[in-house]
Every structure is written in structure tokens, then in C-alpha cells.
């Protein structure tokens, strides 16, 4: 039915695709960022529409509701100010003690607020795109979190956007520790296709004394994630590999399905 040039064209395109698939990672990353810029106007339009809808919703709110919310926020603000004063005093004390012991001082975290603009359209990856890139100082392997806890790390950076690989993806492994006297540490891995709210904490000692509700934070045994970022709480634990080690199911503190604005951490 078709002529020979048609078959040659299809074969040529297939061959070119195979070549692109075998290009070095850095080259394809640059190509991806170049092609991805086509979507930027569409993301801009979507963001504009969302903002307009939010503004319209705000305009419809009754004044009494706004006053009530304002009062609640003032109260919360006062509480947080008191907590911040207490924390500042603790930091000063910590700094003095570190100086006395001759330990290196910890530098405070710097955070940058970014907006999630897209999720991965493929069902077999857990990644999102954010609206800030290398122009805003972002670089690969920076931790990303919400006010609830860790959500992942920056995996690729463009000029004006970046990709964040979420916790629970097969390519995002996080060294984590259990809070309290347990002192156990392991690696956070994926818990399965559907369990977006859960991850597994593996390679814990087989005699680890784990209880549901215990907090899990980053252990600091990594050059990417600083120590102490909340990850979630223990939901369940079981012995695996014929009792070789314990694996715990961890309920994530952050809701990965409702990511709108997230923080990039500059340790």
C-alpha cells in the first residue's frame, strides 16, 4: 500500500530515536529543558487562572469570617513568636556549648519557596516540576520539603524550572533514623505503586524495638539530606528476609498528592 520512502522514513525516525535514547544524560537533560520551555506559557496561563479563581473566592468570603481568621492568625503568630524566642535562646546556648567543645558550628538552613507546576504524566515515576531553576540558585540534590516534612530532592535543573524526585520513587533513597531512645537507622525506599502516603524504612536491626507512632527523621548519613528533617511516623514493622533485618512502614508526614507550594532547602 505504501511506497518504499515511507518505510525508509519510519525506519530512519526509529533509528534517530534509538540514537537519542543513547545520548549522554547531560545532553538529554539539556534537550529536555529546551523542549520543555514550550509548556511555560501554558503553565503561566494555568497559574493565572488559579490565582484569579482564588481571588474570586476571597472576594466572596464574608467579613465576619475574615475577622475570625485574622484573630486566629494573630493568636498563632504570638505563640510562634514566643516559640521563636525560645528557639533563639536554645540556638545561642547550643552555639556557646559547641564553641566550648570546639565543635564546628552548624550553618542555619536557607529556604526558598517554589510552586509545583506539573506532575509526571507517566504512572511509573513520582516526580514533580517546580517553577524555579538555576537562575534562582537551584542546583541538583537540594532537599525539598513542606512545613510537614521532607518530600524529596531536586534531580534536574533548568534555567527557570527544575524537577523534584519525590520520596517513594525508586530513585529516591533517604537515610533515616527513628527518633527517641531507639537509635535505629535505615534507608527509606518505595512501598509500592499505590501507597503514596507510605514508604518503607528498611535495613533496621532485627531486634529493633519499634512501636507505631514513633517519629522518623533524616539521619544525616548523607551529603544530600541534613539531619533532623521530619519524614513521618512508624505505622507497622515486620521482620523480612528470614529475620535478617526489620522493615517498617512509615506514614509520610507530608501529603504528596496535594503539593502546591514547597520549600527548597539550601543546607
Amino acid at each position, binding site marked *: 500500500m*505504501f511506497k518504499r520512502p515511507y518505510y525508509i522514513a519510519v525506519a530512519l525516525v526509529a533509528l534517530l530515536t534509538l540514537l537519542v535514547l543513547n545520548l549522554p544524560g547531560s545532553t538529554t537533560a539539556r534537550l529536555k529543558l529546551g523542549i520543555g520551555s514550550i509548556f511555560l506559557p501554558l503553565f503561566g496561563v494555568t497559574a493565572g487562572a488559579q490565582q484569579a479563581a482564588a481571588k474570586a473566592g476571597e472576594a466572596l468570603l464574608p467579613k465576619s469570617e475574615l475577622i475570625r481568621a485574622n484573630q486566629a492568625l494573630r493568636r498563632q503568630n504570638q505563640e510562634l513568636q514566643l516559640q521563636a524566642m525560645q528557639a533563639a535562646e536554645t540556638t545561642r546556648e547550643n552555639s556557646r556549648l559547641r564553641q566550648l567543645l570546639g565543635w564546628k558550628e552548624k550553618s542555619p538552613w536557607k529556604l526558598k519557596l517554589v510552586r509545583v507546576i506539573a506532575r509526571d504524566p507517566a504512572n511509573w515515576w513520582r*516526580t514533580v516540576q517546580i517553577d524555579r531553576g538555576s537562575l534562582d540558585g537551584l542546583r541538583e540534590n537540594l532537599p525539598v520539603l513542606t512545613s510537614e516534612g521532607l518530600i524529596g530532592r531536586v534531580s534536574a535543573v533548568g534555567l527557570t524550572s527544575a524537577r523534584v524526585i519525590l520520596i517513594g520513587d525508586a530513585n529516591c533513597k533517604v537515610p533515616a533514623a527513628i527518633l527517641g531512645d531507639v537509635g535505629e537507622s535505615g534507608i527509606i525506599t518505595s512501598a509500592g505503586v499505590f501507597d503514596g502516603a507510605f514508604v518503607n524504612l528498611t535495613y533496621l536491626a532485627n531486634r529493633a524495638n519499634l512501636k507505631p507512632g514513633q517519629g522518623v527523621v533524616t539521619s544525616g548519613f548523607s551529603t544530600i539530606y541534613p539531619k533532623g528533617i521530619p519524614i513521618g511516623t512508624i505505622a507497622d514493622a515486620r521482620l523480612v528476609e528470614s529475620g535478617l533485618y526489620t522493615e517498617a512502614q512509615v506514614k509520610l508526614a507530608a501529603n504528596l498528592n496535594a503539593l502546591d507550594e514547597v520549600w527548597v532547602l539550601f543546607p
Partner: protein
Amino acid sequence: MTTVPNILVLLATLLAVFAGGAFNGLRQLLGAQVDLLPALMVYTALSSGPAMMITVAVTGGLLFDTLSANPLGTSVLPLLLIGFGLQRRRDLILREEKYAQLVLGLIASALAPALSVLVLLTLGQSPLLGWGSLWQWTVMSLGGAVATPVLFVLLGGLNHALGYQRTIESSFRPDREIRRGRK
């Protein structure tokens, strides 16, 4: 003559990929995101020529991989294979029939993710797979199946509204009219 349909298909390709990344209602509801590209490939393979089929496969695949963590080019090969297979058999396909569109959409939407995962595994990648992937595959296949006739109606309607219409030539010619009756 074919500029408008081609532009429409390319616009639809861009929007299909964008919708997959920007709107998550279905993902939150059913646990899987539906990919509209296989459905669009069915429409293109049955309505356009080989050049347009190749263009949509390359453009759609590259755009999809750009928004995704897939290595660049992963989605091009499955789409190209689907389009090529459909175009080879397009004379035998009842493309106007809704059930034919539905079945072709189902097959294409089931094949595309399966082939993409196969390419990924061949490349040594480790995509998130498990028993839940079967459910996601079912949702993607059924979603694509439903989307295919909708795309045919939508794009067909837009083509009809924006494109040039073929003029229907009548066999009537006034100079060849048989005059009846006596003068």
C-alpha cells in the same frame, strides 16, 4: 488544503501532554493518569498521511518525555509502532464506526505504556512497578478507549468548522438539459 487539520492535531498533541502533567483529578480519584497520546495517534493514523503520523509520534513522544522522568525518546518508539501498524491496515478499518474507534483506542492505550515500560527496562531504568501497575494499566487502557471516539468527534468537528470544505460537484449541466415538449 491540509494545513488546518495538521495544526489542530499538533495543538491537540501539545494539550494532551500538558493535561497529563497539569491536571491530577483522575490520578487522585483512580490512582492512575490517563495518557491521551495513544488515542490521538489512532486519530492521526486513520485521518492523516504518513508524514503527519511520524510528526505526531515524534512530537508527542518528545513532549511527554520532557514532562516525565523518562529518558528522552522513550515514548516515541511505542507511538511510532502503533501509528505504523494502524496505517498499514487502515484500508481494512471501519474508521467511521464508534466501536472500531473504541477498540482501537483500547488496544493502542494498552500497548503504548506496556511498550514504554519495556523500553525503560531495556535501558536499565527502574520504574515503579508492582501489582498496582495492573490496575493503572487497566485505567489507562479504558481511559484511552473512551477518549478515542471523543477525540474523533472533537477534532472532526473542529476540522469541519475551520477547514476548507470539499465542494460537491453536481452532474447537472444546463447545456445538456433535455428539452421536452414541442416548440
